[in-house]
């Protein structure tokens, strides 16, 4: 019951946030100079052609009217049609969403355990040789811009030692999963950053938890270190970690543009960037809302996870 109430509140908040995001995206698209009519202008067009195109796309009406129209259609799950390619937004977004979900899924499957391991090792042996080496590596990996990391990976593994494909080209009639090697470099580029960044935060959480009285008490009681770590320390370190990974996941969904461009991976970020450039408001709203929804849902999930492991929060929610 309490979890339900919590969920209901969160769902309402999520809906309100999505609405706000929709308004902001629409307004932002309006503020940018030009519109879909000028963005896809034919060099042989005349100014009258531009005006006609604008009228045909309905862009000559005030934006609140167009927004209301779009919003009511969106409520009926009709996200409209691209002003550029004239395809339904749902069709345009479906393929990149699948591709991104795969990329993010594989990256998360590698990154989360790796970050936990890195964080635990360096947190428990802070100041030790392993900690210093891992910390130094993490700081470097986090500070190098992603396009450099990705470019270096291509240079080394596709050019100098050609063992992996330079771009993520799935086989004809298949998906990247049919040729998993195309995922290796994009996942590696994302993981290098993700695991280093999340590892630093896990390390801090582990250090904090390590100093807690109940962990100290468990140690003094003579429990084996394994039990201390997994039964007492980790649950205490989990809340900050869960939120870190929620951040990481949602960041990955919207923030893989650089990696997508370097490896020609046809994901959501590319779609978003192209929609902004072409003033394709319907596609922009579609992708933007999808990303916002993913981010909001992953935080709700993180909260639920934290509630599940932390008895105090369960009590507070009551």
């Amino acid at each position, binding site marked *: 019951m309490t979890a339900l109430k919590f969920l209901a509140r969160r769902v309402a908040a999520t809906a309100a946030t999505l609405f706000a995001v929709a308004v902001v995206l629409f307004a932002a698209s309006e503020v940018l*100079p030009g519109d879909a009519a000028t*963005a*896809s202008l034919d060099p*042989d067009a005349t*100014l009258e052609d531009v005006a006609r195109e604008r009228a045909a796309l309905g862009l000559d009406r005030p934006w609140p009217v167009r927004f209301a129209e779009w919003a009511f259609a969106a409520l009926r799950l009709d996200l409209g049609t691209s002003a*550029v390619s004239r395809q339904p937004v749902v069709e345009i977004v479906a393929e990149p969403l699948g591709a991104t979900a795969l990329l993010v899924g594989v990256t998360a499957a590698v990154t989360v355990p790796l970050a936990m391991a890195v964080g635990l090792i360096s947190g428990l042996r802070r100041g030790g040789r392993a900690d210093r080496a891992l910390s130094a590596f993490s700081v470097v990996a986090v500070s190098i811009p992603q396009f450099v990391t990705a470019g270096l990976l291509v240079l080394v593994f596709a*050019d100098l030692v050609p063992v992996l494909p330079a771009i993520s080209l799935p086989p004809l009639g298949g998906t990247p999963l049919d040729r998993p090697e195309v995922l290796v470099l994009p996942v590696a580029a994302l993981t290098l950053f993700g695991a280093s960044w999340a590892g630093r935060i896990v390390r801090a959480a582990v250090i904090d938890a390590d100093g807690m009285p109940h962990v100290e008490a468990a140690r003094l009681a003579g429990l084996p270190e394994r039990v201390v770590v997994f039964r007492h320390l980790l649950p205490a370190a989990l809340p900050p970690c869960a939120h870190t990974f929620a951040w990481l996941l949602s960041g990955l969904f919207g923030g893989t543009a650089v990696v997508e461009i*370097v490896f020609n991976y046809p994901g959501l970020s590319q779609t978003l960037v192209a*929609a902004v450039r*072409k003033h394709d408001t319907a596609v922009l709203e579609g992708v933007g809302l999808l990303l916002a929804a993913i981010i909001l849902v992953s935080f709700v999930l993180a909260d639920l996870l934290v509630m599940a492991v932390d008895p105090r929060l369960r009590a507070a929610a009551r």
Partner: protein
Amino acid sequence: MAQEFDRRSVFRLGLLAGVTAVGAPVLSSCGGGGTSTGAGQSGGAGKPLATLKVGAPHQVTDSEPGNPLTSSIGATLLVLRHVYDSLMVLDNGEYRYQLAESVEPNADATAWTIRLREGVTFHDGKPLKAADVVHSLRTVGSKPSNRASVYGVVDLANMSAVDDRTVKVPLLVPRGDFKESVLVVFSPVFPDGLAQFAKPIGSGPYKMVGRNGTTTTLVANEQYWGGKPTVGELQVVGILDAAARLSALKAGQVDYAISVSATGAKTEAGSADIEIRRGGAANSNALSFAMNQQLAPFDNPKVRKAVRLAVDRQALVDNALLGLGSPADDVVGKTLPGYADLPARGRDLDQARRLFAEAGVTKLTLRTGEIVPGMLNASKLLAQQLAEAGVELTLQESAPDAYYADLTTLTKHPFQAFYYVNRPASVHLAAVTNAKAPFNVTGPPAGYQTRLAAAQAMADDKAREQAFRALQKEFYDEGGDVVWGFQEQLDAARKGIGGVRVVQSVQLFDQATGPA
């Protein structure tokens, strides 16, 4: 990188559109490549290829390849040109009939008669008929086709099939340049009634068999009327980023990369496995600093002349384009049909200084942005060159994505960096310098507009060509463009790939061959 891609796409439309072509049909390359081949001729010294993979620019939001209503650039355009034939093309420096056998005007060029080639069949086995042409032109000539404006002068409703091989095309105004300004620009033909292009049907050398993610697969049309293609299967792989296209080529994932960066081309110049193919001026962008004659201080012809004389074109090409281009002489259309062979424009600092002094100009402002790679560097260099002529140039920088978005801004700025696709002069002047054109940034006077309209209406080919030469001369002497360089299309290919033709800035692979 990707930043310039988009805006260029708009202008590349012009390419597609048309009409650019081809001084040297195989991009004059570093030694390699086959010989020039027209459809049906032999493909050079190499061997036929079972499969060829081509990496071409493509964005996820681009339309499905093969749809003639939303063709844009790169991969979509490449597929379009292999699947469909056009009524006319600009090939190897001249206007050629493809599906048309003849195109003749009436006495005052208000109605044109298109006679069709015999013995052409579509991929579905049906023969080409006049009704197909009527349907095709109506479809690409009206919305939602993104090339509808090309057909602005055509009376589409009253177009008709006279018999199976004859189409009558009435115009709304007399146009002697109907062939080069309309048919050559964009006239793909598909069967009557075809309105869904998910499964495109054309009469071209390739049939589209499928699409997977960003890869489109085409197979040879063995019955092609222009000769059997030498490449059995053509895979067109859409790759957004120029650097990624080059990486894919180096890693062997594609055999040919369309459009690589100048830096990439320089880096790979010494490569043992890859060769860079330069498009020459025929396949290039014409880069300009455009002065608007309607606005001060460029309403004074002395100021325009002074700027033209102060510019060191070779230095701009060498530095801003890394030498991968050639100097231009203020008029678009060099090496293409109808060019007036205007004299090369030299630098004359003394005269420029004197003219600026006479006009009382000591300061200018240039609106600029990285609208094509190298434009910002060119603008900075221009500032140095003008400083040598005693004028201080301030650069007002805009983001490339927003550069063309606001059409009013474009017409209000006296001096701005600009670029055009290098097209035949008559097509360029007609499309871009007319009073209604959104990209008319040089503001030619009313008299010029009258002469331009008169030239377009001339039915006699010789007289019209003369009139357009005179307009080019007028633009050269009095106009507002400082077209300073041609930025060549740069491709990269696996060594030994030959027989690739470039027709209207689109690479055609139907006669391509591999290493012998």
